[in-house]
């Protein structure tokens, strides 16, 4: 059963611990700018949006790669880079609609989320649940419950307004 990272930006507090642990896991050093995840902020407006690979089913990065260096890991479902094949053209960076394909200037190659081989550290450390690693089969149910909760709130307001109106 494959799992997927689910991001709920409303729960993100912008602490960037995910960036920190990602860089330590992958590069063995603390350097948030070498992480595979990025918390993009419009700080003074209070907007916080985590950006990470969506592991797209029809992945533009895979489609655009001229040497087929990107492939899907059958076990984890992650789109992974084969650095022995990669020619470093960075077309995948251009193609990714989310900006989730990063670039590591130390090793001069593109980097992306590989789900830490099935134990994504960002989700492991995210206390608020802004980043969760869930079974694909439960993904729809999660969104349904969230949508239903919002609807329930509206319904309560409406019924309260009616009853107050007498």
């Amino acid at each position, binding site marked *: 059963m494959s799992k997927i990272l689910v991001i709920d930006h409303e729960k993100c*507090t*912008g*602490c960037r611990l995910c960036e920190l642990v990602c860089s330590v896991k992958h590069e063995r050093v*603390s*350097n*948030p700018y070498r992480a595979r995840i990025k918390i993009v902020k419009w700080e003074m407006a*209070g907007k916080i949006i985590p950006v990470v690979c969506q592991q797209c089913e029809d992945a533009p990065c895979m489609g655009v790669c001229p040497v087929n260096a990107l492939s899907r890991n059958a076990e984890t479902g992650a789109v992974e880079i084969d650095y022995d094949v990669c020619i470093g053209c960075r077309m995948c960076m251009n193609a990714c609609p989310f900006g989730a394909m990063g670039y590591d200037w130390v090793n001069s190659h593109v980097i992306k989320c590989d789900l830490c081989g099935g134990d994504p550290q960002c989700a492991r*450390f995210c*206390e608020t649940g802004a980043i969760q690693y869930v079974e694909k089969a439960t993904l729809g149910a999660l969104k349904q419950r969230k949508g239903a909760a919002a609807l329930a709130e509206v319904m309560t307001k409406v019924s309260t307004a009616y009853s107050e109106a007498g």
Partner: protein
Amino acid sequence: MALKRKIAYIDLTNRTVKTASIPIELRKKFLGGRGLDMYLLYNHMEPGADALGPGNVALVSAGLLVGTLASASARIHLAGKSPLTGFIGSANCGGFFAPEMRLAGFDHLVIKGKADKPVYLWIHNGDIEIRDAGHLWGHNAQDSQTLIREELGDDDIQSLTIGVAGENLVRFSCVMTSMKNAAGRTGIGAIWGSKNLKAVAARGTMDIGIAHPEEALDYNKEIITQVTSAKVSKTMQKLGTMFIWGTTNTTGLVRVRNFQSNQIPHADDIEPESIEEEMIGTAGCFGCQVHCRGRYFIKGGPYSGTYAEGPEYTSLGAFGAEVGCTSKQTVLVGNHLVNSYGMDTLETGSMIAWAMELFEKGILTEKDTNGLDLSFGNNDAVIEAVNQIAHREGIGDILAEGPLRAAEKIGQNSIQYLIHVKGMSNLHSDERPTPALSLNIATASRGADHLRSRPAIDLYHLPEKVLRKIFGNPVPYDGPLTSDFRDYEGKPWEVIWQEMCYGAVDCLGICKYHTVFLGPNMPNFDEWSKLIYLNTGLELSPKDIWDSAERCYTLEKLFNLREGQTRDMDWLPDRYFDEPTDKGLPVVRGRSIDREKFTKMIDEYYKLHEWDKKGIPKKAKLESLGLNNEPSHQL
């Protein structure tokens, strides 16, 4: 490695920058952050320097564990001689600046002299540039950060900035970063303003080495679980530090209308749960899972639609109880304004509350305030007073001078109404029923201060066995300890233990909300020892960390003594002794501090510190700490 970060000496007068390595011996001795800050202050400032003159120094120091896998290690420490008190100027804040400065290659900045026009420092991957800040001058603390990001074309730049309060040399102005992170106390912002230093901006991509990455990851997870499983953290995650208000006002431990009562009734509107209704969520500092910063939009009035962060517990007093107001709008607007202006919320509220009591007593009149009606509870007047202080207009110009200078200007017996120690106002807390907390504010190195040595868990009625476990480690203590917060016995040691606890995390760059400040089961010296080893490779025992904290605190004492501090300044305002509390639960009602017992407490406190009767550290103590040759000018 984390230990390879450098120190930079910046001379603003001559526009020179020099860098140097930090000897490992000094790291082991002072760790970093506040510890090395104090070493640098003691070594680089000529005794007796004018706090607002070019002879003062502005120090910027990242904690030893900043940017590593030590949870909540995001603190940047700032120092100099305080323009408010003339003694230790020292404050720290979270946010994202400290890790960014480390990623940019530096742990410590020693800023000297005075620029001939406004400048800011731009720190980038080992380089430091002094840049023109003419276009930033006059802008608030947050806009200045945005303008720097726009100018340099990089949204990831983190900056420390001063607002207009710092420019106007308000003696309790802050240095700010992000929306609301404030190195709030002792007026560091005014030191920067006096040097024409508007900001320090950093952006770096240099690796911070982790000595044992896998183990450090696992241990970080362990610490996060330890911290977030505590009830106090769960509450903070929702309400921030505001939650404290629920307990302290209910009990009767807040100061109301300056210092005329200890509980404010009918204050439902400023209860944390009421303010929570305005929150759109919370925000965290770098790597922290407690995320205690509230986020909100102001609704209604001239600031409607403005995004802001906070308010903290302190602002509930500053713009609530102290000034006799019970309107959350006043708290939310006041909080926003002090953060924009870059002004200590606590000192601002205290100065206004004091002025209001003077107004009530007729010592200040509408003639003195240009018609501003400073009656307690006048919400509009509180907000107007905040504006006037920041811009040094009207009565604000006098209040901007801080407690003692303002009292001297206003004259009469206005000084009697100040709730200050060593020229720094107290939090909106009332310590008359709590001798331990009274001793803490009377002796703290910065002045009336709840963040240098407050043994807050003294209020928790913990069993003696638990107290022994906490206060008997890492240094054995077999003296008295009692669960009753009204007692005088045993409390001096609690204050000293707490000095070392806060000193340790201030040196490491860890937030105090991850210590035994508000929760007895939080990480402690043992955990910090392991964190230091896993992240930096340094092997320091819990006792070694304690010793570093003690060196830091002792240097602060030496600095204060050098600047003329005397024993009589370790004391409380008369009202603590002469006016018993009038409200609250039976355990706190009718309480005041006993002069004789309090004097004995101070004697005991000095004795435990191995200081003499005048509060001067004994020679043997200095030798055992290796401080007998300071200033030693090794950095």
